[in-house]
């Protein structure tokens, strides 16, 4: 059973968003890491980069494949998580917490509301 924390919003492409005022943290869901298994490399965007909602801005590589990560919201990247660069396995063991990818300053707070609720995401992944 996938873990689907109730304080997060979800994108159809399996990223999660944790909003805190006008910034948010982004990572991939427990369901996504379980599909990928063995994550061996994470490529994160540069701090300061402007991204648009839906834009590919990071890459997660498992043994078998490289997967694009799409930013659920638009804004400026303010921080990236060096821990997952040093230890990609963290994304498998703590996808909703320590395995976060980047923090972003929201340019359009309404985009967060358009994302899936935990219940809708649960339905999407067949839970």
């Amino acid at each position, binding site marked *: 059973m996938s873990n689907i924390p109730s304080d997060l919003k979800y994108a159809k492409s399996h990223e999660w968003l944790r909003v805190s005022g006008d910034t948010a943290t982004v990572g991939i869901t427990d369901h996504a890491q379980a599909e990928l*298994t*063995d994550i*061996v*490399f994470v*490529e994160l965007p540069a701090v300061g980069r402007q991204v648009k909602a839906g834009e590919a801005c990071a*890459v997660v*590589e*498992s*043994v*078998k494949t*490289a997967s694009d990560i799409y930013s659920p919201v638009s804004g400026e990247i303010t921080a990236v998580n060096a821990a997952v660069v040093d230890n990609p396995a963290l994304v498998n063991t703590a996808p909703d917490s320590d395995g976060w990818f980047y923090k972003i300053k929201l340019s359009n707070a309404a985009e967060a509301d358009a994302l899936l609720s935990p219940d809708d995401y649960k339905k999407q992944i067949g839970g």
Partner: protein
Amino acid sequence: MLKRTALFSAHQKLGAKLIDFGGWEMPVQYTSITDEHLAVRNAAGIFDISHMGEVTVSGSGAESFLNSVLTNDIRKLVTGDGQYTLMCNEHGTVIDDLYAYKLSVGIYFLIINASRIEPDVAWLQAQAAKFSGELNLSDASHNYAAIAVQGPRVKEFINAVIPGASSSVFKVSAVTDLKKNQIAGFNFENHSVFVSRTGYTGEDGFEIVGGDESIQHLWDKFISIGQPFGLKPAGLGARDTLRTEVCYPLYGHELDEETTPIEAGVGFFVALDKGEFNGRSVLAEQKTNGVKKKLVAFKMTDKSAPPRPHYPIWANGASVGEVVSGTQSPSLNLGIGMGYVPPEFAMPDTKIEIEIRGKRFAAVVVKKPIFKKT
């Protein structure tokens, strides 16, 4: 509708992640590629290889026919021996790589790649039509299922799964008495199965070919008897990382109809002196005058994403070749791969770069195999 092997329901029961492999619905992994890979390196893994093809070639002309279509010298085989060999066309490029076994005088058994069954059989039939000796060629692929059991601990339990002495081909007192590359027939639940001491992982192991029901029962028996020794079911994902670590070629990657065995570095299996065979003149010319591209093995030396097939290889500031196989090595914890470069960049210790998503990362050419057990 994808094809399914006799072990499909076994894979479903184990919760395997299934993918389309050349038209077959096959397990890419059961738990994780890394776990399955390390199980094979440290204990044992069991693979479904039923999708592979089998061809029987028999008759008094069989040996001479096969020597005219395959690159290795089949006359080296005594009954019960097998050899790695390649089948080339008139341009010396590879139609398939395969194993050829001598089951008795005048009876040979070929194990061919799943993705190449049709072109191989068509080619063999076309060549056979031009051959004037006594020859019988039969595509027996639909008659057989097969499994591979690989890893250092397999020899500790395989005799309990397939007990007793061999019943055909040649006499051994137990499965574990088979030497590397040997094959014999064994009785299992009143049916005959072939067991060979061969594999595609770089570990000791066995491959078993038999009817659907025998292989289904063998799979279950292996899983139950092997479990205390650490045996795990392993999928195509681990199969690929294992063979890449030891630099075994995979048709469609290191070998294809645009590549010769000499370019691929498997000239050892080309017996130019045995007489005429398809592609001989091109291969002889390459052995004398050299090649334009050479297969190299490499390791990433910068921290980077893993190399993957088709990523460009750079040397001396120019794009000179392409990766054909690449992955993160579970045994070594770094990116490894194989690719083609002009021969001047093929010496071990040559510094190269791999282009990954538009950026170049340092790598170094290494001797094969990339991974060696100490």
